[in-house]
C-alpha cells in the first residue's frame, strides 16, 4: 500500500512540477516574435490563468499524499539516515517540509491573484513572485523527495 501511495505521490508531483514550471515561465516578459517559435518560447506560451486552479488542487493533493507518507519516513527512513550520520539528508527534508507548509499557506493569495486580469503594477509583480516562490518550493520538494527515496542506492 505504501509503495502505491509513494508512486501516486510521485506521479502527482510530476504533474504539479510540469504545470507550475509552464506557468512560472509564462509570467516572464514576452520574448520577441522569433523567439516565441523556439522550444522555450512555445513552452512559455501557455494560458497562465488556466493553470492556477489545477496547480492549487495538485499542490494540496500532493501535499496530502506526502503527509500520509510522512509517518513511514519518520519511523523507518529518518532513523536510518541518523544511523548513517547523514544529517544533511535530514536537513534537506526538514527544509522540504517547511517549504511545502509555507506553500500551502500561499495558495489562497496565489489563486486570488490569478483570478483576474492584472495591469502591470504591484499586483502583477506579486502574482509573478508568488508563482516563482511556489515553483521553487515544488522543485525543491521534488528533487529532495527523489534523492531521499533513492539515497541508499546513491551513497557508497
Amino acid at each position, binding site marked *: 500500500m505504501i509503495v502505491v501511495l509513494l508512486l501516486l505521490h510521485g506521479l502527482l508531483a510530476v504533474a504539479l512540477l510540469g504545470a507550475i514550471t509552464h506557468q512560472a515561465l509564462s509570467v516572464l516578459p514576452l520574448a520577441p516574435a522569433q523567439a516565441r517559435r523556439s522550444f522555450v518560447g512555445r513552452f512559455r506560451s501557455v494560458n497562465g490563468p488556466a493553470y492556477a486552479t489545477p496547480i492549487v488542487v495538485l499542490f494540496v493533493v500532493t501535499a496530502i499524499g506526502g503527509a500520509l507518507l510522512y509517518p513511514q519516513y519518520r519511523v523507518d527512513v529518518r532513523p536510518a539516515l541518523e544511523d548513517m550520520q547523514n544529517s544533511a539528508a535530514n*536537513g534537506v527534508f526538514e527544509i522540504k517540509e517547511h517549504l511545502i507548509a509555507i506553500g500551502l499557506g500561499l495558495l489562497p493569495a496565489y489563486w486570488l491573484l490569478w483570478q483576474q486580469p492584472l495591469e502591470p503594477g504591484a499586483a502583477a509583480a506579486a502574482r509573478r513572485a508568488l508563482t516563482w516562490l511556489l515553483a521553487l518550493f515544488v522543485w525543491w520538494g521534488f528533487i529532495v523527495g527523489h534523492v531521499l527515496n533513492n539515497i541508499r542506492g546513491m551513497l557508497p
Partner: protein
Amino acid sequence: MRHPAMKIFSMLFGVFYIAAFYFDLALFRYYPEARQFHWARTDGIGVVILWYGWIVTAALASAAVAVAVPRTVAERLSPRWVWIVTTLVVIVTLIYERRWFV
C-alpha cells in the same frame, strides 16, 4: 479585489508556521508507532510528528487574524507584502536550518 482577507491569511501563514515550529506550538502531536494523536507531549510511545500540528496552528492563527482585520484595511494592503513577508520567512528558515549542514 475580491476576498482581500486571503492576502492577510497568506501573508501571515508563514510567520505563524515558523513561530509554531520555533516555539514548539504544535496544536497536536502524532505518534506514528502508536498511531495516536495527543494534545500534549506524551513520552514512551515512540517518535513524534509535529508537522501536522504546526500547519494547523498556523492555519487557525492566520485565519483568525484574517477574519478580524477590517475589510478596508485588508483592501489597502498591497499584495506585494505577501511575497515579501514569505520570502523573508523562507530566508529566516534557511538560516535556522543551517544547523543540519555544519
